[in-house]
């Protein structure tokens, strides 16, 4: 798998390279600012892009904007966005480019190397991964009284949160020490409550639930 890394801070950039090369990925290029990232990705056509949100030249959300542009041109390009700080709005914008192969996590997650490498592989495989901090924030967000989310049981909320983090049913079952069947049952309750119609793929339904959460 060939990756391009966009990260302006050298220690973080080299740390990522180290972790990912050890895990067997090929780092095709690194970029220290957003415009370089665009150029490299267009020239190389990697299998996945990892990018920091805040980058030169503007030192604002330049990295995110580059990623959104690249996704607009190539919607199937898997992207994993890293940041010191997570924001609901950024997750919304990333999911608007299509729900497959999108990850948005805190930089510090790289420290848990195995989990991070697994996340990279899952994003590459088309999963949607959101940092637990974003998920917790949107779960706790103030909602009007009649909101469907308020009708969920605590257990269903737990399941929904783990789904939004991008975990598989098996992982959720293991985490909550329940059976996979129970997870599926909870999930269908959640879809009903949120008014999500049955569809061909589970992934679409998860995505719909996540979008509901983020909206």
């Amino acid at each position, binding site marked *: 798998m060939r990756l391009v890394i966009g990260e302006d801070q050298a220690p973080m950039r080299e740390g990522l390279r180290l972790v990912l090369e050890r895990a067997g990925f090929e780092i095709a290029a690194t970029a220290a600012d957003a415009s370089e990232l665009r150029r490299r990705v267009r020239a190389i056509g990697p299998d996945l892009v990892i990018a920091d949100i805040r980058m030169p030249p503007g030192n*604002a959300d330049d990295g995110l904007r580059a990623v959104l542009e690249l996704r607009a041109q190539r919607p199937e390009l898997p992207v994993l966005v890293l940041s010191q700080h997570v*924001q609901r*709005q950024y997750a919304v914008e990333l999911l608007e480019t299509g729900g497959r192969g999108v990850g948005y996590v805190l930089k*510090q997650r790289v420290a848990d190397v195995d989990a991070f490498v697994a996340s990279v592989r899952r994003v590459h495989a088309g999963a949607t991964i959101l940092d637990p901090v974003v998920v917790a924030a949107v779960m706790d*967000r*103030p909602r009007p009284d009649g909101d469907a989310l308020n009708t969920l049981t605590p257990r269903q909320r737990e399941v929904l949160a783990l789904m939004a983090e991008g975990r598989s049913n098996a992982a959720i079952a293991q985490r909550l020490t329940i059976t996979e069947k129970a997870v599926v049952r909870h999930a269908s309750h959640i879809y009903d409550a949120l008014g999500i119609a049955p569809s061909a793929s589970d992934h679409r339904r998860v995505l719909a639930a996540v979008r509901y959460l983020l909206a």
Partner: protein
Amino acid sequence: MLAAGAVWAAGVETAFILAPPPAPWVALLFPAIALVYVATGLAAWLRRPSSALGALIVAGGGCLLLGGLANMGSPWLGAVSAVTATLILAVIVHLLLGFPTGRLHDAASRRVVAAAYAVCLVLETPRYLFAPGATLSIADRPDLAQVGLQVQRGVGACVVAAAAWLLARRIRAASPARRRVLVPLTVYGMLALLAIPVSSAMADLWGGATLTQAAVQLVAIGLVPVAFVAAASRGGFARTADLAELSAWLGADEARRPALDAALAAALGDPSLRLLFRLPDGDALIDARGAEVARPASDDRRRGIVDVELAGEPVGAIVYDAVLLDRPDEVREAGRVVALAVDRERLTASLRASRARILAAADDERRRIARDLHDGLQSRLVFLAIQAGTDAEPAELRAGLETAIDELRELVDGVMPTPLTERGLAAAVTDLADRLPSPITLQIQGLESRLAPAVEAGAYFVASEAIVNAVKHAGASGLAVALRRVDGHVRVEVVDAGRGGVDLDGSGIRGMTDRVAALDGTLTIDAAAGGGTRVVAVIPCAS
């Protein structure tokens, strides 16, 4: 007391003159004229204590009383009289050059007046030291006395000429209204001076000269104080004589200028006078140090107050001693002279105060950040270092580090919210709203493009302060926040449905006001008790 003393002295003098074999009636003119001086001088002094004019006239009366002692027959009193015989002439020069305040404002006047006193006191000495048979005589040398007299006459003439030149110059520079007063006064004063033959001392008058001549001279001198006091109340001198000092003060450069209220107190002659400034927002009156001062009660007969207005707007007030200054018009007039300076001073005062508060707020913030770093992150890292030195599990260490990173992220976010830096005002306020316990109404208009960082930060911190206040006091429900960019201004409006009655002097509100003011914006807070609170900030932003 001074008046009683003068009357007594004049009475005694009169009695002594009457007691011996009938003395010429002219001798009685001395105490009589002295009384005229003392009376007019005291009247002027009382009316305007700051002016030295009255005091000077009273002193002139004293000189005349001393000069008249010669008529009482005692040789020693005659000696005192001889020493002070011509002193009144120097006082008249002083009065002329010091008109209308009795003070000498330039070096040339001071030199001329000093020379006049020298002529009347020092150059007078040969006349009694060398006069035959005088009490103070040290030698019987009429020739030397004659030489001394000629010298005194010559120098005296020069002094009078110099004074005349200075007065002429002043008349030329005066306004027409003042000139109408100054010309007759000066002419009269000069004639009174010249009416005394320089050659004759008071005591000699009725030896050689005729009694009528002496009487005319004394009457001419006697009318001098009346002329001065009358002139001082005409031609604009009454109103602006003291105010001239104020104008001079206003022209002085900033560093050498004493405080405005001190200048005003000196000009009006009321040391208890206080100048108060009206704050740009509100009716409160503050003194120069920024402390609030209550208005004297309207029935307070001892303390008076007049408002200082500039273009119809009240900018301050003068509180004065109503017993000392019984004419409020005079105080009001002085207020008009200084209104512009008062306005500037109060704006400077409020600017200075706001600058100090901004600095203090910044320092508080730094202290808070330092404390948070020290108490939280630093101690956590020290603990992790110790843990790493023992046989801690890597997973344990990593968990500790992640907590430290979370802590740091929160700290950085508190200092300058990430969404504000990355996305600007609308994103930052949206993010803030996401973290509140219940939903709020948030309207955002015209903020698609970024604003200047200072404007974004200013608008954000006003919004967050108002939102946090509202949530604290009123709960978030019913909270409405609107951010709009209209006509080169960004408008932040936060309305809650709480109890209202917010403390407008709280440090949070002050901080908001200062921040908005620093950006040339305006902050309005409607907080009628029971009716909720509405905070509106309008900040200019180049569009």
